[in-house]
């Protein structure tokens, strides 16, 4: 029997039991839609993280204590500001080494107040991360050396505290007391990991250390002169630090490595989500199998007749398999439309990221066809194997 003919016969069979076909498809529609939506969310999350990490700037090596694994508890740093000079001698360019000591505090200006990420930084941080200024100046070496109480505001903080007015030269208070003079405002850069970088305020690291009563820095960030210089830089820095702090481990990672690790985690997460959604697809497939078995029983006489007229086992098998695949791919197509629509709506209307890739609908279609074959094969084989004499006699 020709392909076109079995297609027509299958379509007719579905049309005859229109309501039943639609209800059976429904399971597949929901399953496929769920897969498409969840894959879109997983992909969207990964894209978001990737673009944010890339936004950190290129060729930057982050140096932190401990082994770098995602999700492990951070090790308290024993690194201090002296390490900038120490590593500067190792790498030969002290100006390319930034430090950061992070905290979060409430900041105030007059009546206005907001919560800000306090970044204790040295004068190099702006260049290492390539953060342009909108107004005034950045922290200077003198600010750091003399522990000045000066601050550079992120653009959001500036807006929340001062509105449209120019904050340079004004005063803010941090953590309910210490007063800082605003010397500059950073240009807007957007978010990293859902935290807005524009909600930061940068103060001299020495001032921050005194304010928090510590003498450590959380991490160092070193800009390599070229991409090719990165691996050597990583090795040198870790080696130098482990020589200095005997018995401790350090890691120096790039954003590419960070990206890889986070990508792996999010990829696994996407996989898990898709697998959960696939279970509903499986349930849909069982429904298809069930209805096909009912169909084979109902049409036993027809099968007997077709065999009497010359249909071979494989003709009958192909007819029913075609019917099952048609059922699941029609359902799959509807599911793809529904899932894609839902993903686009989510991306548009909610903060959840969702990205529809070209391959996920294609994959969903292939999977729904495969579901049809897989769950259609048992009923179709049963149909194909019917004894024509017995089938013709069936009621």
């Amino acid at each position: 029997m020709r392909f076109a003919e079995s297609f027509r016969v299958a379509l007719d069979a579905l049309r005859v039991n229109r309501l039943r076909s639609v209800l059976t498809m429904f399971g597949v529609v929901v399953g496929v839609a769920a897969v498409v939506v969840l894959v879109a969310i997983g992909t969207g999350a990964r894209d978001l993280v990737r673009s944010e990490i890339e936004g950190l700037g290129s060729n930057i090596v982050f140096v932190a204590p401990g082994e770098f694994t995602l999700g492990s508890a951070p090790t308290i740093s024993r690194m201090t500001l002296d390490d900038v000079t120490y590593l500067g001698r190792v790498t030969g360019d002290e100006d390319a080494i930034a430090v950061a000591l992070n905290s979060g505090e409430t900041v105030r200006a007059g009546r206005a107040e907001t919560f800000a990420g306090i970044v204790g930084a040295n004068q190099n941080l702006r260049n290492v991360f390539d953060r342009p200024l909108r107004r005034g100046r950045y922290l200077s070496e003198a600010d750091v050396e003399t522990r000045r109480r000066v601050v550079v505001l992120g653009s959001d903080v500036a807006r929340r505290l001062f509105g449209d007015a120019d904050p340079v030269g004004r005063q803010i208070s941090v953590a309910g007391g210490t007063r800082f003079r605003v010397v500059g405002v950073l240009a807007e850069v957007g978010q990293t990991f859902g935290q807005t970088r524009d909600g930061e305020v940068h103060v001299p690291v020495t001032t921050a250390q005194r304010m928090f009563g510590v003498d450590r820095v959380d991490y160092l960030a070193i800009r390599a002169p070229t991409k090719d210089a990165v691996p050597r830089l990583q090795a040198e820095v870790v080696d130098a630090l482990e020589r200095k702090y005997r018995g401790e481990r350090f890691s120096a990672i790039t954003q590419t490595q960070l990206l890889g690790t986070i990508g792996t985690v999010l990829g696994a997460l996407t996989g898990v989500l898709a697998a959960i959604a696939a279970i509903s697809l499986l349930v849909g497939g069982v429904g298809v199998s069930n209805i096909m078995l009912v169909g084979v029983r109902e049409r036993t006489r027809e099968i007997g007749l077709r065999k009497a007229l010359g249909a071979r086992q494989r003709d009958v098998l192909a007819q029913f398999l075609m019917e099952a695949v048609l059922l699941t791919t029609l359902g799959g197509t509807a599911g793809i439309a529904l899932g894609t629509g839902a993903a686009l709506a989510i991306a548009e209307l909610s903060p959840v990221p969702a990205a529809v890739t070209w391959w996920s609908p294609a994959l969903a279609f292939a999977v729904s066809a495969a579901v049809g074959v897989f769950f259609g094969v048992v009923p179709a084989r049963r149909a194909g194997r019917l004894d024509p004499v017995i089938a013709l006699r069936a009621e």
Partner: protein
Amino acid sequence: MSTPALEAVDVTRTYRMEGVDVTALHGVSLRIDEGEFVAILGPSGSGKSTLMHLLGCLDRPTTGVLRIGGRDVAGLSDAALAELRNARVGFVFQSFHLLARTSARDNVALPLVYRGASRKERHRRAADALAAVGLAHRLAHRPGQLSGGEQQRVAIARALVGDPGVVLADEPTGNLDTRTGHDVMDLLERLNRDRGVAIVLVTHEPDIAERARRRVHLRDGRMESDERDDPPERGER
């Protein structure tokens, strides 16, 4: 003598039911020549349908030899058997066995589908076959829109569409009133005469059986008698 259209040599058919063997045919030998018109008679349960299924390759004998057009079916695969049915045998059933939601034309064309014939050719041949049974004006009708006699004529057109050597009809008039039954017999006779198709029909009705040129009686799975009308008529064709 030419090769027979169908030939059964000492065939038996035993069904196994819940461990008990039921033998429906005990060694029947029957030879059907091309262009013959044979009626098979016998009481209910005597094995008539079983024999028809064997002759039509829908079933295989438990023992004995079955030849279709001189070819032993014993060594053939199921698929080869299906192709043989499609090419050489036409079936007509008591209950018509038409597809309910399918037009008369597409019902008739069904055997051609399994030959891989093009749609155009199927339509042309189905229309011809329907014209041959006097239903040229009923192409688009569905079985439910046709009378019993018309439905059986559609079924006969379907049996003929593939140009088989033999038409096997199991009680083709069983569901029809006497007059319509005789109309169907007129048709079968005409096809036998004009096209030389051999016809084997099972019937309970003596006056239907009288119209065949040969009558085979079965009883308890055995052939009881095999009577022919005067031989001259046979060689005519």
